[in-house]
């Protein structure tokens, strides 16, 4: 294995790599041993803390699976609403009318600048009895979905804009030349091509949405996956074990989505069809407020 930064290791370098590996293993082992012994001291490694997840199917049927379902439901619904809304906002930002551009731009920048948690808290307060009086059993769910939609439609608007801008100029010019109107150009020529370029970024955004649903569980009383921790730990007093299992579920679901996103990106970059333009699906960038970069095919 060689890279730009170092040569293929010779005999000396190989020995050095083994030494470094050894040092790392020892350090990592020490930290692990310390953590495990501390957990053992506090009784967190006792079998009865961990076995419920294997032996007691009720842990799964009563808590974990319904919790995961709520998480997925809120995430899917938020994505389903935010997608068309974000597309509209994104197109609005590309409008020929300066007034529309400015208004939509201000809306998008405003909602991107505010933490999604604050939007959830605000929605929850809006749905309180004094104002809109959403039934209290579904209020947390709708507050979470509303908060997610407000934030993510703004982020998706930026992704859509970047996607449309990533297309070669000739596409819009050709559409204009054959006499299509502005709306037709967008609907028949630009958007269908931009969607393929945006796909990886959109899948990555879904990961961000799923992770953010956990906020609703912690502060709004939304019965999603993470909030199940409290109930399971109350029954078995196994906070750490439950946290591990819940984290594992999140990681499996999100890792599958992330892998899908990077597979899509690779496929799109390599494909002969389309323009080969890809709005980067890097979670870091999209998570960081939708500054979606635009990559061109090499």
């Amino acid at each position, binding site marked *: *294995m060689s890279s730009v930064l170092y040569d293929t*290791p010779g005999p000396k370098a190989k020995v050095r790599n083994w030494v470094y*590996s050894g040092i790392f293993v020892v350090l990592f082992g020490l930290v692990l041993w310390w953590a495990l012994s501390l957990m053992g001291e*506090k009784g967190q490694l006792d079998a009865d803390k961990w076995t419920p997840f294997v032996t007691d199917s009720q842990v799964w049927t009563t808590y974990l699976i319904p919790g995961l379902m709520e998480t997925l439901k809120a995430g899917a619904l938020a994505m389903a609403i935010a997608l068309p809304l974000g597309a509209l906002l994104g197109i609005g930002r590309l409008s020929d009318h300066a007034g529309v551009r400015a208004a939509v731009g201000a809306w998008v920048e405003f909602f991107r600048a505010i933490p999604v948690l604050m939007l959830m808290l605000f929605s929850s*307060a809006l749905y309180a009895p004094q104002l809109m009086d959403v039934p209290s059993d579904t209020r947390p769910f709708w507050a979470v979905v509303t908060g997610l939609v407000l934030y993510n439609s703004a982020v998706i608007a930026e992704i859509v804009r970047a996607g449309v801008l990533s297309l070669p100029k000739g596409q819009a010019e050709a559409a204009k030349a054959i006499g299509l109107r502005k709306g037709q150009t967008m609907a028949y020529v630009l958007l269908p091509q931009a969607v393929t370029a945006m796909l990886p970024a959109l899948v990555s955004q879904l990961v961000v949405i799923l992770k953010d649903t956990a906020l609703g569980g912690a502060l709004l009383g939304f019965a999603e996956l993470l909030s199940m921790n409290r109930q399971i730990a109350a029954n078995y007093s196994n906070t750490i074990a439950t946290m591990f299992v819940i984290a594992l579920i999140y990681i499996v679901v*999100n*890792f599958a989505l*992330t892998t899908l996103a990077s597979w899509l990106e690779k496929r799109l970059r390599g494909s002969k069809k389309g323009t080969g333009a890809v709005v980067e699906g890097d979670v870091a960038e999209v998570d*960081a*407020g939708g500054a979606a970069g635009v990559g061109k095919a090499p």
Partner: protein
Amino acid sequence: MFDFLDSGQYDVLGAFWVTVQLTFYSAVGSLIWGTVLAGMRVSPVPLLRGFGTAYVNLVRNTPLTLLVIGCSLGLSQTLGINLGGETFKETGFRLAVLGLIAYTGTFVCEALRSGINTVPVGQAEAARALGLSFFQVLTLIVLPQAFRAVVAPLANVLIALTKNTTVAATIGVAEAALLMKEMLENEAQAVFAVFAVFALGFVLLTLPTGLLLGWVSKRVAVKR
């Protein structure tokens, strides 16, 4: 409409000051931790590469809320690790910073790694031809150029971090989001006014950061 600000009952500026402090300590910590992770991910030692990749993939796919609550419930309340914090307030703050560093470090690492890719191959090759070791190539030649290329992505990570500090509200750190929750509950007749105050606070925090660092990124970018 905004009379709740004059009542003296709420310390809005104090809450935002905690937000700023959370952001500052987490930003410094995650910059260091992210650089170490990036160094591991490009290093010639396969074991370090594996650890870096595994850490980034695991932590990036975990909700920040879970990490922060895990620090509080798991580390502090179950295992009794309080990070030297003596009061509940101090401990909560430090645990939140730890969670934020663990999470944000992965994004810093990924941003840096993409920055390393922008450094032309010839730079590293020339450095190796001079006989520099991997560590020297990385710290003297590649990283200084990579950092200049990733100011804009890092600025985005910083803005996201500023917003993510609100997650500390889930373990009771008295920052902006927690005060907003309390005020929304007490001042039900002024929901929009409360939201406006806190929204303005965050716009004031994130907008200048973005503009300033955007300007810096143009100034320091390596002209190729």
